[in-house]
């Protein structure tokens, strides 16, 4: 290949990586509401809302999410937080379309999955998801 074509390929490669980075960044932290599913085995006894954080040991955002959740639990005893290595619960990851860590399932008192927090979500957004999960679900 001549040098000019090679440089065009290089430019295309950089552009591709740039676009991929912007897309990944836009999608890496988000809250998905109304997921459904029953994970009552994962709830913490007595808590109004349980945050089940699916983590991996090689994930830096998991540490940030743990910090946010721990602070929230310290301030509010009706909320519980537990962290699970996805390798220990691969079926949970499969049931709830978990493709990245941390993904935190917000469980209400009955163990229904009310929302999923993907990535290191901001404290205010975690709080909003927790409050939404306190509202009793009316089943048709």
């Amino acid at each position, binding site marked *: *290949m*001549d*040098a000019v*074509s*090679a*440089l065009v*390929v*290089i430019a295309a*490669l*950089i552009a*591709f*990586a*740039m676009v*991929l*980075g*912007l897309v*990944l*960044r836009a999608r890496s932290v988000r809250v998905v509401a109304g997921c459904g599913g029953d994970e009552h085995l994962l709830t913490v006894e007595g808590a109004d809302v349980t945050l089940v954080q*699916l983590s*991996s*040991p*090689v*994930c*830096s*955002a*998991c*540490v*940030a999410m743990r910090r946010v959740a721990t602070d929230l639990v310290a301030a509010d005893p009706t909320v519980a937080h537990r962290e699970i*290595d*996805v*390798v*220990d619960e*691969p079926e949970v*990851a*499969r049931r709830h379309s*978990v*493709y*990245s*860590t*941390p993904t935190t399932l917000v469980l209400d008192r009955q163990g229904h999955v009310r929302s999923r927090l993907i*990535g290191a979500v901001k404290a205010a957004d975690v709080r909003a998801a927790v409050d939404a999960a306190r509202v009793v679900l009316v089943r048709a």
Partner: protein
Amino acid sequence: MTGTTPTERDSGDARVGIDPRGPRFGAAITSVLLLVVVLLGLIEPLGVDLLARATQPSALLLTALVVLFAWGAFAGIRKHPYGVIFRRFVAGRLAPPTEREDAAPPTFAQLVGLIVTATGLVLHLFGVGGALVIAASAAFVAAFLNAAFAFCLGCQLYVVLVRMGFLRRSAARA
């Protein structure tokens, strides 16, 4: 500037964690070098025999990068030469880190980089055309995302490996 020296601030204590900007600094250097590999690989014709393929400039540079990835993956990200350069010449010029992170995620990323580049290099040595360019391009994308967007490879790849069944409890704990 605080009263501590850069070396004291970023000595990489396991409990304190590392400055997350260190691995990103290294990834920036790596991504530029990988682009040079891609460029050379595109321009150079594939060597006619093993010796020619092993000694063509693109393969020599990629070999150096494979060694650097292995260094980071097995000695740990803290002992990587880029980390040493960062602590000695860069960290002191920056404000102290606002947060610290565990060394495991960037070390895992080094291992992934090692697997990708070493596979490309071996295939290249066996005469597979395009293997070197494709492997270097893939590694470039990962390194660039890390440097420019603080992309965390371990956050994504680990779950995918678990879901595909490549990573199981016993294997992960071993």
